[in-house]
């Protein structure tokens, strides 16, 4: 029996500076003998020498394989150590783990992405894969809208990706909490951008950000008439295994690492969830 | 302690003062809480609403540094209510009249104002304590770490003697010792003024006995206390130091002075298990074996001498402190530094230390150690102290008067800073606990406890970084809004080197015990704006 806590070796191929605190690490697995696949919304357990492991969402699309992006904000000991790594350095990865955004169900629907800060990372892969499919499939995703909030102008991450999406017809609306001189766009909370006209009868909303943002966005969407099953969000919890064993992410009888991290509002509604209360 | 820990749960009244018992002495707190569950009354005297205070029947949240005034008032009330134990006082104590005359002159309303506690609450507490014949007082460093620490202790003793709550099971005065072997270090005379077993260095017979065994003269010059050694600064008389397993750079008051003293020494040697802040200033650092890597005895708060057994070989090239000392002793030509085992050292200790007279390794292995005094091989040890006689004969009442802390709040320093151990998960300067993965996870950084009212006034949020200033220094620390502290007071621990809070504390000390006034100093605080 192979030890399940031993990660696979991966090497950093590229590092993108998304903002002062967020870097995207483009990884490639060294051992190609067994195939690796994942779906957008899933996460990996990332091992960093001497720091242990942390759960990190995959921020790229499966279409970019064999490269895998992890966008990481510098916050604690492990993430600080990751930020000090260079191209060519090795890390360990286990996974992918958890539920994913059901891209196959999005055919013919309008997608409304609402993200705050690093919360765009798990949604990024969904946007990419939808855009990729738009070119290939008969009944692709219709309108894609992104509402993205940051604290300050300097905090805006993934600008490169946002620019590329705009080129491909995604309606990207940005907002910052704190006004600055050269900022031409919207100032205020991301909920301010949530206008009823954004919603159609075929809208699915995908939300990720700080708990308080998730709470207000869901409340507003619900009020605007979006059904509970058409609201999807992804939760962040302290995790040690990613495989439903360690118990840390237990949530009212569910495990975020196995039953989540992607949940419909319908599934979360009756649980005691920090993000909703 | 005059009682045993196991006796505690059968007491009827607990008076806990200056002790955050649930966090610092969990087993004692467990016994107290079990007693409370069985119907005992719990009175807690503490400026903070500690977890134990939350369980108390009466919480006397006094203004910091007003313990003497409070307890004097309690005694006055006890006398007024005819609850004093006259028989005990006449049989076992001296100088009661002086105390009584002094107490009669007290103005109770004034004391209520000084302590900030309603007179009725003080009265209730006094009556509850005095009406029971099984009342126990537990006190800790909240009582002793004041300029008037000795007086505080005396006042507590007065209260116990006044009601006859001493010299029996389930009744007594129990100082809770902080570290695992504080009691033993004192017993073994790691103190400047006594020989092992608290024998006076000035006693000729004692010195003759020690000289006979040690083959050396016993120096008669009075020694310096820790604070006198470490606070002398650059012009102190101390030129060289050897420090074993202590971290005064972080634990002592007015840290800058300590660091200055130590860096100015001609020579500093430190023996420790980690490269502590103190060790990193040393000329020589010895890697010591941890408790798991050696044998030896330690003495707990209830005077119980217990064996620690070696579990593993020393890590790396570490050696037990005892071996390091003997190696040094041999090199310094000190005789009697060739013990083959810890048991052999204990044989010499029991020979020279009457209260340890019956402590032998073969006996300690049975019955979970022995409690001193244990005079000889046949003596069973002593469960509670002061039975039939106090160590000095009759118990002495001494009049103590309220005195304000060395430093009072004023316009520029409007907050009172309290310090202490701050969590279930850390310990002293945290050299051990911060090397424990789980304990670090549970309490990763220093926090400044502050009331909601003060936060509102200062526009602070939970977790904001603030700069704390006193006349001596400043530190930065994150806030934690809590109902544990009263408005006007803030609290933080001294566990974290990143927040060397003792740079702020005063180095005023009790003139008799030399215990520094850690508990109270005046500070100001302001929010640190992020760049």
């Amino acid at each position, binding site marked *: 029996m192979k030890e399940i806590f031993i990660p696979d070796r991966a090497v950093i191929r590229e590092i993108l500076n998304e903002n002062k605190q967020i870097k995207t690490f483009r990884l490639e697995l060294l051992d190609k003998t067994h195939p690796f696949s994942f779906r957008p919304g899933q996460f990996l357990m990332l091992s960093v020498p001497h720091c242990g492991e942390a759960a990190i969402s995959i921020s790229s699309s499966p279409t970019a394989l064999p490269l895998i992006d992890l966008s990481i904000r510098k916050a604690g000991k492990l993430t600080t150590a990751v930020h000090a790594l260079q191209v060519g350095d090795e890390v360990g990865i286990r996974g992918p783990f958890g539920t994913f955004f059901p891209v196959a169900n999005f055919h013919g629907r309008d997608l409304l992405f609402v993200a705050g800060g690093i919360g765009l990372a798990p949604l990024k892969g969904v946007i990419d894969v939808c855009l990729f499919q738009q070119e290939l499939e008969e009944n692709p995703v219709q309108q894609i809208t992104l509402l993205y909030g940051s604290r300050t102008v300097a905090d805006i991450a993934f600008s490169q990706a946002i620019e590329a999406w705009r080129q491909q017809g995604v309606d990207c609306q940005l907002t910052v909490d704190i006004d600055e001189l050269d900022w031409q766009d919207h100032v205020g909370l991301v909920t301010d951008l949530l206008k009823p006209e954004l919603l159609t009868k075929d809208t699915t909303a995908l939300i990720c950000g700080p708990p308080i943002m998730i709470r207000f966005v869901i409340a507003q969407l619900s009020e605007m008439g979006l059904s509970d099953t058409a609201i999807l969000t992804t939760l962040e919890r302290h995790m040690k295994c990613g495989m439903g064993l360690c118990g840390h992410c237990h949530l009212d009888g569910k495990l975020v690492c196995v039953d989540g991290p992607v949940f419909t509002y319908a599934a979360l509604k009756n649980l005691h969830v920090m993000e909703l209360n | 302690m005059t009682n045993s820990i196991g006796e505690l749960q059968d007491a009827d009244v607990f008076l806990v003062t200056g002790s955050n018992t649930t966090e610092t002495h969990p087993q004692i707190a467990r016994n107290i809480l079990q007693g409370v569950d069985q119907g005992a009354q719990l009175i807690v005297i503490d400026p903070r609403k500690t977890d134990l205070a939350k369980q108390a029947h009466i919480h006397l949240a006094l203004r910091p540094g007003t313990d003497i005034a409070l307890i004097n008032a309690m005694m006055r009330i006890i006398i007024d209510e005819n609850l004093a134990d006259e028989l005990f006082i006449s049989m076992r104590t001296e100088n009661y009249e002086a105390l009584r005359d002094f107490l009669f002159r007290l103005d109770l309303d004034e004391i209520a104002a000084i302590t900030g506690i309603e007179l009725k609450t003080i009265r209730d507490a006094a009556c509850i304590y005095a009406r029971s014949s099984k009342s126990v007082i537990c006190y800790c460093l909240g009582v002793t*770490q004041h300029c008037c620490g000795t007086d505080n202790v005396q006042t507590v003793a007065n209260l116990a003697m006044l009601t006859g709550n001493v010299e029996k099971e389930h009744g007594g005065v129990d100082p809770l010792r902080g570290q695992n072997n*504080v009691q033993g*270090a004192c017993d073994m005379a790691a103190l400047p003024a006594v020989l092992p077993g608290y024998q006076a260095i000035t006693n000729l017979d004692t010195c003759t006995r020690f000289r006979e065994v040690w083959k*050396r003269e016993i120096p008669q010059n009075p020694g310096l206390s820790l604070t006198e050694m470490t606070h002398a600064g650059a012009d102190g008389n101390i030129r060289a130091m050897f*420090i074993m397993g*202590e971290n005064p750079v972080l634990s002592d008051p007015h840290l800058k002075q300590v660091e200055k003293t130590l860096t100015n020494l001609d020579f500093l040697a430190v023996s420790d298990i980690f490269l502590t802040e103190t060790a990193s200033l040393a000329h*020589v650092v010895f890697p010591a074996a941890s408790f798991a890597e050696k044998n030896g005895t330690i003495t707990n708060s209830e005077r119980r001498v217990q064996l620690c057994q070696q579990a593993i070989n020393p890590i790396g090239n570490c050696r037990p402190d*005892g071996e390091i000392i003997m190696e040094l002793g041999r090199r310094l030509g000190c005789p009697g530094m060739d013990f083959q085992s810890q048991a052999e050292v204990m044989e010499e200790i029991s020979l020279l230390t009457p209260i340890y007279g019956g402590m032998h390794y073969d006996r300690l292995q049975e019955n979970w150690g022995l409690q001193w005094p244990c005079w000889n091989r046949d003596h069973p040890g002593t469960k509670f102290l002061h039975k039939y006689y106090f160590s000095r004969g009759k118990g002495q009442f001494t009049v103590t008067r309220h005195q304000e802390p060395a430093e009072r709040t004023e316009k520029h320093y409007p907050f009172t800073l309290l310090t202490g151990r701050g969590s279930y998960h850390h310990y002293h300067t945290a050299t051990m606990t911060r090397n424990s993965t789980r304990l670090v996870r549970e309490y990763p950084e220093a926090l400044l406890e502050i009331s909601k009212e003060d936060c509102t006034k200062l526009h602070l949020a939970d977790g904001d970084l603030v700069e704390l200033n006193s006349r001596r220094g400043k530190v930065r620390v994150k806030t934690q809004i809590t109902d544990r502290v009263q408005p006007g007071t803030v609290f933080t621990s001294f566990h974290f080197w990143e927040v060397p809070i003792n740079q702020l504390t005063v180095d005023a000390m009790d003139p008799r015990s030399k215990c520094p006034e850690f508990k109270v100093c005046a500070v100001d605080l302001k929010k640190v704006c992020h760049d």
Partner: protein
Amino acid sequence: MQDVMTICNYCGCGCGVYLRVNQNRVVGSYPSKNHPITQGNLCSKGWHLHEFIHSHNRLTEPLLRKNGQLQEVSWDEALDFTASSLQQTKQDHGADAIGVLASAKCSNEENYLLQKLTRAGLGTNNIDHCARL
């Protein structure tokens, strides 16, 4: 796996703790039920007593300051240097120019030996520990 009875190294309660030893590594702490104080309970610190023992931050070699830096040396070098430095201080400034701090974390035997060394070997009463801190 082996259980070794010892006394907790933290507070003054003095709990009886079994250290669980596996191949010269302490892998656990477990309370004793019969110990008169412990009675089967441990606090958070007691339950994690084993964790710091094998910390990679432990000192494992004697260190001596050379050119301002602490460097690894042999035991003999560290001990010889310490003994001669203390001797020198005593010669130049008298025994009372030496101060010794013992430890409330060390054993009775070690505290006894250290105060004996201080008094009989160095010839001073300048010894104390952190009882009041």
